[in-house]
């Protein structure tokens, strides 16, 4: 049974008094202290529930006011609508997101109170309650049990697959803060270090790959590059051209202040048109190389028809690079088997490099004037 705010303080005291009468070893002073602690806890739970109810009502009222001001229906207003309305009504130049006003349901914003589980007699469920950090020690012992299992299991009889180590590439352990949040308990640095030692031991064992799912619960993918995510615009969908009945993909990309839109159809004869001009109007050899690069890498020279339009600042290398990126994205859409090659050769990555502004009191972005004493 979970103790909720509706349980009266008196009843909780009564349950505890019956509990203390059962325990024989406890001294009266310590049981009295424990009773007081439990009473405090119950009061805390009650107050928290009351506060959450109050905040929930406040939220509903705020939402109604917002809906009124924005001329919307309060019942159909989503969280997205609320955010938009707040952004509109309270414009701010502050860049830190934490400094901006928000309106959200209280259970999303306020810290959660972890309620303890008690059994019929009022005793806490689970022996780890007395360790004060039940979730942490639960995890620690689970790691130990799993380590032992991996270590002992099979021995010599292990198959090659069962001897595999856990692949650490692409993910890292949750940091102390995130680990504490996930466990729902405050943990000290010392405790975190202990946990990390146990985890590292587990993954160092041959056969730790069998515990992949458990281990990955406590690791997170490295911020950006995990999975099939691309750095830059996504791969566009494939469409069937209504007139020619050919598979077509249209992608957009940008380099510096140049924007390119490329339309690629398969079963072509190698036409390559950039802004209404053919490829040979590019004087520079490097520009032609760059434009043809995705076709060279994916072995599709002379098999597609490509039309590109660009706008923006332009430039000798920026235009070909922008077209190259959009073309690569379209090829990856039309031929999914070429995606890996294009990714590895860095053609599906947006080039984030830009001109760095020059600094005051310096001749350039990084260059400094020579310092002279006199």
């Amino acid at each position, binding site marked *: 049974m979970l103790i909720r705010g509706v349980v009266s303080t008196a009843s909780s005291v009564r349950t505890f008094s019956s509990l203390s009468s059962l325990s024989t070893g406890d001294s009266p002073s310590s049981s009295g202290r424990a009773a007081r602690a439990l009473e405090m806890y119950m009061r805390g739970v009650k107050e928290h529930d009351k506060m959450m109810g109050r905040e929930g009502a406040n939220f509903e009222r705020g939402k109604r006011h917002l809906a009124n001001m924005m001329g919307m229906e309060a019942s159909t207003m989503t969280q997205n609508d609320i955010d938009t309305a707040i952004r509109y009504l309270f414009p701010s130049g502050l860049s830190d997101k934490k400094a901006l006003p928000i309106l959200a349901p209280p259970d999303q914003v306020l810290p959660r109170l972890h309620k303890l589980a008690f059994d019929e007699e009022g005793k806490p469920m689970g022996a780890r309650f007395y360790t004060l950090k039940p979730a942490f020690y639960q995890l620690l012992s689970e790691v130990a049990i799993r380590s032992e299992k991996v270590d002992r299991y099979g021995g010599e009889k292990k198959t090659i697959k069962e001897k595999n180590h856990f692949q650490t590439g692409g993910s890292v352990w949750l940091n102390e803060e995130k680990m504490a949040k996930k466990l729902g308990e405050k943990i000290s640095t010392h405790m975190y270090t202990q946990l990390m030692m146990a985890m590292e031991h587990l993954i160092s064992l041959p056969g730790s790959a069998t515990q992949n799912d458990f281990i990955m619960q406590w690791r997170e993918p490295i911020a950006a590059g995990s999975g099939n995510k691309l750095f830059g615009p996504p791969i566009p969908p494939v469409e069937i051209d209504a007139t020619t009945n050919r598979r077509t993909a249209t992608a957009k990309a940008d380099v510096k202040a140049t924007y390119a839109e490329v339309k690629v159809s398969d079963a072509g004869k190698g036409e390559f048109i950039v802004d209404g001009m053919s490829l040979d109007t590019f004087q520079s050899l490097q520009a032609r190389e760059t434009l043809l690069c995705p076709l060279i890498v994916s072995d599709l020279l002379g098999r597609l028809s490509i039309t590109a339009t660009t706008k923006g600042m332009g430039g000798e290398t920026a235009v070909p690079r922008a077209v190259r990126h959009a073309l690569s994205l379209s090829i990856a859409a039309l031929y999914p088997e070429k995606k890996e090659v294009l990714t590895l050769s860095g053609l599906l*990555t947006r080039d984030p490099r830009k001109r760095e502004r020059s600094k005051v009191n310096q001749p350039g972005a990084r260059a400094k004037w020579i310092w002279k004493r006199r």
Partner: protein
Amino acid sequence: MIIRPCARLISTSAPSSSRYDAKVFREPISDREQLRKPLSADDERNFLFIKALKSDETPTFYRNHVVDKLVRVCMTDGRKEMSRKNVLAALEIIKRKQYQAWNKASDDEKPKIELSAFKIAEVGIDNCKPLMKLQGVTRGGTTYQVPFPIEDSEAEFRAMKMMRDICRQKAKHGETFFKDALAAELMLASQNEGATIQAKQELHKTCEANRAYAHYRG
């Protein structure tokens, strides 16, 4: 209509060293042979982003590391197109001269003549690579020219730089064109002759003379 807050941002942070975060970006593969091979399961590039391919690294069949590097070394004021024109013109001159020589040569001489200008440039630069470098080290207010060991890529760079400076000197005040000077210098260097080879030997001599300063290293 949504009014977006617009405040003028003044950057107070120090400029970062690279637009690519070193933690999540790895170098692209520009070699076609290597691209065909599958990556191993624990390769970092399976999980991380790949940097965008540089414009001068397109895997064309004529891609040549030495020529590309020479283009970059000979570049002034970021005008790479101009520099590439000069270097490729020099290679064309070499090709023409070699082909003329090949035409004139007798039948048993012909196979000995190298017709590839790229090959001649590679050999020429390779012959000019110094074995050591001189670096100034200040001890007790005096700067000593101390010989240091050199890595292969730096040796290549220094060879190219020596050749470039000699060619620029020759092409000063419009006496010759840079491309002619470079062509002549590359051809001589491939035979272990010429001003760049001399400069290299002189450097070696100075390194030998300054051997006594070697303990100032590090």
